[in-house]
């Protein structure tokens, strides 16, 4: 609990500067921002790879095999897990401290319209994205609830035949967009990059990035789930209807 952690900075400054930095409010935020920006780079590469789905089964499976056969893949995956863990763990700790910082809530809180839909829902969208990632990795990477086979294209598009699964993707990806709409430009501010000339540009680029990522990823479940049902055998057809969402936890 944050109350128990509070005394940590009180102690005489420890010799380890890194620990002091990570325990500090600003240090935590800087780490969350850095990890978040690296995760944005991953999102771009992931989107580029996923859009190969639109080139059809053989092209996508070739891409998947190329990725799988790369000996550096486990290293990249491990790095990705570490980035996620840093981002989530420190953001959760900051959130708990923030809740403790105002123990008695206002009866009326209105503010002065500085908050955005993205900024005021970061914890909510972050949680949604985390749940999404767990389900996504379980069903697509580890193929829980589906037959493991070489035909990854059929496996992926098969999942989207389930409207519940595709619908959840749509909701979660809108959440990703909202999260990024605040997160990207906010990360630059946290890293100390605020400049009268560049900040408006960073804000515009952050919004554009959020829209690009959200729409790019949304195109996949929308197309394969609601527009075209690619002629592919659904993975483990019997488990399809309610399996993916309920069964993944």
């Amino acid at each position, binding site marked *: 609990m944050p109350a128990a952690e*509070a005394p940590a*900075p*009180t102690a005489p*400054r420890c010799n380890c*500067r890194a620990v*002091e*930095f990570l325990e*500090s*409010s*600003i*240090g*935590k*935020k*800087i780490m969350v921002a850095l990890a978040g920006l690296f995760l944005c780079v991953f999102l771009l590469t992931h989107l580029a790879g996923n859009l190969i789905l639109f080139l059809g089964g053989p092209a996508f499976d070739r891409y998947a095999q190329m990725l799988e056969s790369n000996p550096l893949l486990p290293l990249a995956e491990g790095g990705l897990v570490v980035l996620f863990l840093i981002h989530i763990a420190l953001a959760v700790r*900051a959130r708990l*401290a*923030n809740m*403790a*910082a*105002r*123990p*008695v*809530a*206002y*009866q*009326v*809180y*209105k*503010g*002065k*319209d*500085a*908050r*955005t839909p993205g*900024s*005021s829902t*970061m914890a909510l969208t972050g949680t949604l994205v985390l749940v999404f990632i767990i389900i996504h990795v379980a069903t697509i990477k580890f193929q829980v609830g589906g037959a493991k086979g070489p035909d990854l294209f059929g496996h992926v598009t098969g999942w989207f035949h389930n409207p519940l699964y595709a619908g959840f993707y749509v909701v979660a990806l809108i959440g990703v967009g909202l999260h990024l709409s*605040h997160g990207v*430009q*906010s990360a630059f*501010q*946290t*890293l*100390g*990059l*605020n*400049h*009268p000339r560049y*900040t408006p540009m960073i804000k515009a680029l952050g919004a554009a990035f959020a829209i690009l990522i959200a729409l790019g990823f949304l195109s996949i479940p929308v197309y394969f789930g609601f527009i075209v049902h690619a002629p592919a055998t659904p993975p483990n057809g019997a488990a399809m209807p309610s399996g993916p969402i309920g069964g993944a936890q």
Partner: protein
Amino acid sequence: MTTNNEAKGMNLTLKIWRQKDARDPGGLVEYKVENVSPEMSFLEMLDVLNEQLVAKGQDAVAFDHDCREGICGMCSLMIDGQAHGPDKAATTCQLHMRRYKDGDTITVEPFRAKAFPVVRDLVVDRSAFDRIQQAGGFVSVNTGNARDANGVLIPHETAEKAMDAAACIGCGACVAACPNASAMLFVGAKVSQYALLPQGQPEREKRALAMRAAMDEEGFGHCTNEYECEAACPKEIKVSNIARLNREYLRATLVSE
């Protein structure tokens, strides 16, 4: 109260947070104030309410105030969920009743943060800010003859930026308005006003480290860049000062010995 005044006076319903002391849970109490002139400031309206309460033998509502001209940083109040009320770049004492109309209901609460405990009613203890200042919000200057005025050259733009940061009156509206009760705008302004000027350089790293530590120790929240602080600040302190604080702290962590 002449009939003339009554003709143009407003009748208002106030929901005011009443709390006997720090341990009392407190709650909103409804009051009617009659005959409020649009010329009055918000605090004068509260004075009228208190006169009415005292005349009835009840306890007056405790609230902080001092200069009543927007420069001391003493008045506070969360008015209908907005720190210092609905106006931009104004303190509560600069808010006038012409902003309201007859029959309005106004909710008045104290600034809320763990680091700003309620003393009584609408009065909160903001000495956490003083302790942050004492940790490093100063420059150490040896006594002696005054230096030549132009001995230390400071670009005009830099001086302006430092002055903008120094305009902070330490009222705590940034903390009150922040969804996380963070004090980053206040600390950002105080660190910036020295970090920008040559006089602040000798203690630059020590100041950033010490003021950050003091801020966290008081139990303020983490900044999530929602910028409600900037919108609420009566002195229009910019969030670029928060970015500078982030930079100063990062730099101090890396370079100081």
